[in-house]
């Protein structure tokens, strides 16, 4: 039970949603964009978040798209993890999001919510960080398309009142060989100790991890693909470089996380070596 009242708005267009937020701000309200709502409801229940209006984005057609067209996989921000996984246009993304929370909740969590939420892991971002991806964002000036690396730096970099409309991934990246490993402290369904994803194209391997520190990070592409280092040297250099990002927590100490990452990297190099 949420212990405070709020107003509920369900706009039917991007403009209506943006204007609704601005109008509420002008009237000294505290609005919140609402996707799946799982994090908002669970935090509101314990008063971990306070707001007096929610703007539900699920009625906006652009936020609900899910298709491969025009050379891109287009995912509306209000699409659920279940729908994205079932569609399976991008197997690495499917595999990653099928390990977020549990199967039932995946039917409620939206990709926009996972990227924009306050829970630091943001596992859905990992496959997007290492692919040719852009985000469509509703801004004061209208719909803008931004490279993923510009709009997401560990967390979504949006101005007040802006909202994520859709994720666009280049079709060429969808079927690349990939690696996904999620390690948890104990249970299969849990926040990650470390989750690692990797893609291999004809030129390079790209890798991103979360759970290691405060935010998801990309591991050094230069080191991972360095032609003069052997695997052991690459792993040592990556661990050293990421040392300052590594933070111990209840899931595992800093030293343990470095040990786990070392093993995950070995596994990844070995898997990619097998496929040539």
């Amino acid at each position: 039970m949420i212990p405070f009242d709020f107003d509920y708005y369900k706009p039917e267009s991007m403009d209506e949603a943006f204007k609704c937020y601005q109008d509420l701000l002008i009237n000294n309200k505290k609005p919140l964009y609402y996707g799946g709502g799982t994090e908002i409801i669970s935090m509101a229940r314990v008063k971990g978040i306070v707001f007096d209006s929610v703007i539900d984005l699920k009625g906006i057609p652009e936020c609900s798209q899910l298709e491969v067209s025009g050379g891109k996989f287009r995912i509306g921000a209000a699409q659920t993890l279940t729908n994205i996984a079932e569609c399976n246009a991008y197997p690495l993304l499917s595999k990653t999001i099928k390990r977020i929370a549990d199967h039932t909740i995946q039917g409620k969590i939206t990709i926009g919510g996972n990227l924009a939420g306050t829970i630091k892991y943001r596992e859905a971002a990992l496959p997007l960080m290492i692919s040719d991806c852009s985000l469509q964002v509703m801004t004061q000036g209208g719909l803008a398309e931004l490279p993923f690396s510009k709009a997401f730096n560990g967390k979504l970099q949006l101005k007040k009142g802006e909202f994520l409309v859709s994720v666009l991934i280049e079709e060429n990246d969808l079927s690349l060989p990939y690696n996904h490993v999620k390690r948890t402290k104990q249970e299969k369904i849990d926040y990650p100790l470390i989750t690692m994803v990797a893609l291999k194209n004809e030129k390079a391997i790209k890798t991103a991890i979360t759970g290691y520190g405060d935010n998801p990070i990309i591991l050094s592409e230069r080191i991972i693909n360095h032609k003069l280092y052997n695997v052991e040297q690459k792993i040592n250099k990556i661990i050293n470089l990421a040392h300052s990002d590594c933070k111990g927590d209840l899931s595992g100490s800093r030293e343990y996380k470095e040990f786990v990452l070392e093993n995950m990297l070995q596994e990844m190099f070995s898997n990619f070596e097998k496929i040539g």
Partner: protein
Amino acid sequence: MHLSGNSIIVLNVNGEDKTVMVKPAYTLLHVLREELSLTGAKSGCENGDCGACTVLVDDMPVKSCLMLAVEAVGHRITTVEGLKNAPIQDAFIKNWGFQCGYCTSGFLMVCHALAMHKPDADDPIIEEWLQSNLCRCTGYEEIENAVKSILSGNYK
């Protein structure tokens, strides 16, 4: 749509349209239990962890503690009261799929949905779906046996 304070909405529950007065802050679980007196969905953790409050929305399992009632407008809600002698209920009895019974309605809804959507589910899929719910009596094996007994490919 804009709702503020006490508002009247229509929810389709177990095949019937129900007119109900809600506040936007009411969860679907609260409205089902307190406004519609459908107490089959149980309040457990209210945090999306235990699954005792699971109902079906458009035939897919949803933890009703993590859904606002206003979000359910225009969708079909099925609670355990709406199963009405579905094969999974008989399967739970025959396979001793419950002990204290508190988690049972949530498990029934997940298993019913699994059988509808994945009648040929293999072990990893069954595990994936059932991991959404907790049984503190730890009757997992019996529940798994129950759902497997009805995965015949002709489940209605």
